[in-house]
């Protein structure tokens, strides 16, 4: 089975600041892959590289066996056109820390927007599917509400439904519960757990160690732009080998 995401020595700099200093990792198909680490460790940046929201400076990054953002011909790399990048992004769902729902559209309109505009799905069909998805995230009765009329947790669940509407083969979660009030976190995690059980490949940047331990199949601890420690979440979280992991976990657990 091919790896869904494969990183080989991925480097990324913002100007003079090197954020990723050579990341090597592999996300298997159907796996829930958790990225943890202190803020500024580069985990969110790495996630954004996977769907080419950020360009990497060195190394190779593959999604489902295909190079991200480039095409290789012989020993030369060609940058992909915007339309080609967009074509690949269709298959990668992304959920943001700050939800980023479209505020001028209702929950339902948010969910049907991309299928209609990008895939050309018929409106009636898209609506039907959107209602199913909103029902799946427990928001069937909020279809007509604007994002400003929803709580943070509800907005994030709409955002998950919006990403699922494109039938992605990979879902990226960028600290999906960090902007939520504590009592709303559970609802979002429940939806993600349900999604994991359905076999979706998920890369999750998170501070929810409970979620990582329960649902995660693999876990990577990043610090200072490198992978410090990786392995089975239950193993790493209960018995960290590296002292930086130990220091981090002692603070958050």
């Amino acid at each position, binding site marked *: 089975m091919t790896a869904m995401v494969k990183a080989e020595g991925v480097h990324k700099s913002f100007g003079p600041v090197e954020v990723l200093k050579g990341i090597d990792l592999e996300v298997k198909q159907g796996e829930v892959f958790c990225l943890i680490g202190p803020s500024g460790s580069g985990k969110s940046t790495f996630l954004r590289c996977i769907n080419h929201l950020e360009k990497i400076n060195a190394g190779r990054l593959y999604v489902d066996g295909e190079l991200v953002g480039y095409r290789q011909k012989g020993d030369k790399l060609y940058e992909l056109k915007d339309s080609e990048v*967009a074509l690949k992004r*269709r298959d990668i769902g992304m959920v943001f820390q700050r939800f980023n729902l479209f505020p001028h559209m209702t929950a339902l309109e948010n969910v049907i927007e991309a299928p209609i505009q*990008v895939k050309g799905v018929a409106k009636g069909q898209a609506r039907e599917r959107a209602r199913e998805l909103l029902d799946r995230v427990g928001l069937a009765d909020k279809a007509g509400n604007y994002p400003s009329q929803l709580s943070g947790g509800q907005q994030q669940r709409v955002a998950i439904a919006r990403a699922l509407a494109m039938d992605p083969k990979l879902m990226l979660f960028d600290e999906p519960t960090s902007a939520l009030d504590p009592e709303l976190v559970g609802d979002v995690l429940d939806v993600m757990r349900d999604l994991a059980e359905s076999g979706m490949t998920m890369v999750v940047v998170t501070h929810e160690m409970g979620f990582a331990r329960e649902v995660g199949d693999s876990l990577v601890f990043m610090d200072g732009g490198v992978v410090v420690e990786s392995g089975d979440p239950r193993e790493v979280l209960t018995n960290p080998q590296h002292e930086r992991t130990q220091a981090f976990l002692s603070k958050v657990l």
Partner: protein
Amino acid sequence: MTDIDKKDGPADTPPAGPEAIKAIPVRHYGRYVSAVVALALLAAVVYAFSQGKINWGAIPDYFFDDRILDGVGRTLLLTILSMAIGIVGGVLLAVMRLSKNPVTSSIAWFYIWFFRGTPVLVQLIVWFNLGLVFEYINLGPFYKNEWSDFMTPFLTALLGLGLNEAAYMAEICRAGLLAVDEGQTEASHALGMSHVKTLRRIVIPQAMRVIVPPTGNEVINMLKTTSLVSVVQYPELFRAAQDIGQTSGAPAEMLFLAAAWYLLLTSVFSIGQYYLERYYARGSSRSLPATPFQKIKANLLSLSNRSASTGGTA
């Protein structure tokens, strides 16, 4: 200063607590004095105008004169067409200005610099006199004419106002586009939407909320600025009023007449702007601002409630 004299207290008063406060409200004597002074000044101004040598009767006589109505029609036509040029040009310039292509963004910058930096009156007269530079206009097989025949007063006015407006609209549109959170573009791109679709479906509808209010301002400004084109011999409202003033012997009266028409038209535009803003505000706030009709209804309701419930203190 205080709300204590209000009968229906704010929500944060402790429920079922001790008896409600009954205090003597602070007397604001300064307010009474300033109100009397302001009213007196207003009365003096009105009195002065009513006693002046102005034949007020001439205004209703000419208010619906054919020449005036034609002028109003031309003013409206010019306002709408030059705003249309301004908005289309402005959007184009704003997108050019924000593009990553250094050539187009510099050209847009230069255009805005030039047209914002010179008075519109000067621009109008320059357009009118461009015959000194271009003797003929020659569009190949389609059109060929002498510049002075081609550049009618209407076209001069339209180009002069429209191209100037485009520079201002460009800055308004740019501000609107920049005001939309970058996360919106990212979310849209992450869903696989193209640049053009992102702009059209996600960014522009949100930018409109920022763009509409200053654009309404520009429309009203444009309506008034059209009075400048009287200098290039275009017979709009102001020019028509002046012409009538000279032949009828009531020049000052006709100025008041023109002013009344401008006020009327700007008022109508303001109402249109209000409803446009309401449309683009959808989803941005939990409840939309009330329309004037809803406000009047609510006021009437609260008025009748107040007189019923607080008859004693009123």
